[in-house]
């Protein structure tokens, strides 16, 4: 199997190249923005001990750096979640939306946006900018737990049931959202629309301090799933015979996806496309082995979302485009083109 070994080597080498690409993306994201603040002159100032201009310090430290970190972790979370779910469901269409995470998060966010004004002022002041992310995270968890308990019978989880129940649950969640949207006023509708199109503009250090560790732990756990997902590609029965603790792998997959995607959607809103496309791109380029695929997904997902954010904040500056629009408008045609070029290769 020399060809197979080659591919594995290529996938491993890709780690390095993708890590380099990610580093370049981070630097570009720190350097680019609507204002004139320059990372280079700030670094020079720090090196020579001269103080950095106050506005530049705020732009670099309070705006660009948190956005870059947010893009990195959200992109990685969405891409890895997509790769895990596509492996778990043995379905190329699987993305975080399919286990109800996105719809549940969306329902939570809508409820928070609409009922926020009904909360006592004291509580509003306490939770502040955390209300919507918190509600979105809760919503995503409630829907995943519900779905998982529907699909699990006598300690065994049926992925087929989970897939179908996920569709039903998403429909129900959307209907509930619809009821609240009907009750919303114009301004709440606008807030909602913007939330659903996603943005990294709300990145703050306190939010990152909560979402960051959560996503990091979830991804680290997800990286251990490579062998189990590889075995699952041969079918559940075969995987079982190979000695894979299937139920444990399923539990771990669902929990890590819910934590990573839930946290990502909570802080950035609805960002589509990354979760479904990145793993496919990498499978086409470096093969289906889940071990390197999961790590590469994290690297490429983070890098591409950072680039999407750079475009989002520059293209109509001083205004800003919702990042979900950028990922779809730029990503979808590229993905179609790659599919056309490599027809027949994708046989997951």
């Amino acid at each position, binding site marked *: 199997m020399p060809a197979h070994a080659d591919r594995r080597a290529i996938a491993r080498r890709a780690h390095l190249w993708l890590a380099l690409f990610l580093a370049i993306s981070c630097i570009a994201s720190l350097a680019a*923005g*609507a*204002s*004139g*603040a320059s990372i280079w002159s700030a670094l020079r100032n720090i090196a020579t001990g001269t*103080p*950095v201009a*106050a*506005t530049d*310090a*705020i*732009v670099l*430290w*309070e*705006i*660009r750096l948190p956005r870059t970190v947010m893009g990195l972790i959200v992109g990685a979370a969405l891409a890895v979640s997509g790769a895990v779910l596509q492996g778990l469901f043995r379905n190329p269409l699987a993305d975080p939306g399919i286990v109800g995470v996105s719809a549940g998060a969306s329902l939570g966010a809508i409820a928070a946006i609409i009922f926020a004004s009904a909360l006592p002022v004291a509580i509003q*002041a306490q939770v*502040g*900018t955390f209300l919507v992310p918190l509600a979105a995270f809760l919503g995503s968890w409630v829907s995943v737990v519900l779905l998982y308990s529907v699909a699990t019978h006598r300690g065994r989880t049926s992925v087929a049931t989970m897939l179908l129940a996920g569709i039903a649950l998403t429909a129900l969640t959307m209907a509930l959202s619809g009821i609240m949207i*009907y009750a919303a*006023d*114009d*301004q709440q509708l*606008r*807030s909602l629309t*913007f939330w659903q199109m996603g*943005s990294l*503009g*709300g*990145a*703050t*250090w*306190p939010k990152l*301090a909560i979402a960051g560790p959560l996503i990091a732990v979830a991804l680290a756990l997800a990286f251990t799933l490579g062998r189990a997902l590889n075995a699952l590609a041969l079918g559940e029965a075969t995987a079982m015979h190979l000695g894979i603790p299937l139920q444990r792998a399923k539990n771990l997959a669902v929990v890590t996806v819910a934590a990573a995607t839930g946290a990502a959607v909570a802080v950035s809103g609805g960002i589509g496309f990354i979760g479904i496309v990145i793993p496919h791109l990498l499978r086409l380029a470096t093969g289906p082995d889940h071990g390197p695929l999961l790590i590469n997904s994290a690297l490429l997902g983070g890098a591409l979302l950072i680039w999407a954010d750079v475009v989002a*904040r520059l293209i*109509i*500056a*001083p*205004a*800003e485009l*919702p990042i979900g629009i950028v990922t779809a408008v730029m990503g979808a045609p590229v993905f179609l083109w790659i599919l056309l070029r490599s027809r027949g290769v994708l046989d997951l």
Partner: protein
Amino acid sequence: MHRQTITRTPRATPLRALLAATLSLGLFGTAAQSGESTSADVLSIGGSVTEIVYALDQEHRLVARDTTSTYPPEATTLPDVGYMRALSAEGVLSVAPNLVLSEEGAGPPETIDVLNAAGIAIVTVPDRYDAEGIGLKIRKVGAALGVADKADRLASRIETDLNEAARKSDARADADRKRVLFVLSTEGGSILASGTGTAAHAIIGLAGGKNAVTGFEGYKRMTDEAVTTAAPDVILVMDREGNHAITAESLSTLPAIRPTPAGRNGAVIRMNGLYLLGFGPRTAKAVADLSTALYGS
């Protein structure tokens, strides 16, 4: 609401000192509040706020505007920082304002926090649909721009005009009031109309009309039968450019409208959206125009 987020850095001390310095500068040094200034350093957010800045002849102070600021037409040549509820922190900082004049509800809060930290003064004006509310808006904008006297004169004039209009409207017997249905859109043939608590509801009342729909708050889709039951005498729509404009014919032929008095008489009034609903310096004139359109002069 404001969180001191800078403290997470190991290099917190010099940064924090800098921040404190800018903050105090921001508090005491807003030239905007201490007298008339000539340098351009004001970001105006909200259509009515921008109109007020122009009405006070302070347009030379503006560096940028938001998407809703479309009147007067000159305003559209200013850089646009986006929709007022989805402002980008760096976008706003890039136009380097010292003062942000804003209608209520500018956001998101994360952006406002950053602007506060950058020492930019933010003056929020209330959004109310009555004469007093407009007066308050104008006075607040005037005070922030250092032209309080001029603003006071403008506000008083508009309040007088509007109170006069309100007095005339109140004097009209309920039976004489025309029932007005404000239609926001007729997308897909179903009617999105204004209930109570909206700018449209308020302006109809000021012009001596009566909102035909009072069963709900805000703008909602109505079933055809409910529209027919509301029996409007007049349909009021916004005049927009291009294909968005609702034509009188297309309205009168809708099954919901046809059987109503407005449908039978083809009574459709069209007015510019910001002019009609902006509740700014032009509102007294808009009320007069609407009143004339309803009852003749």
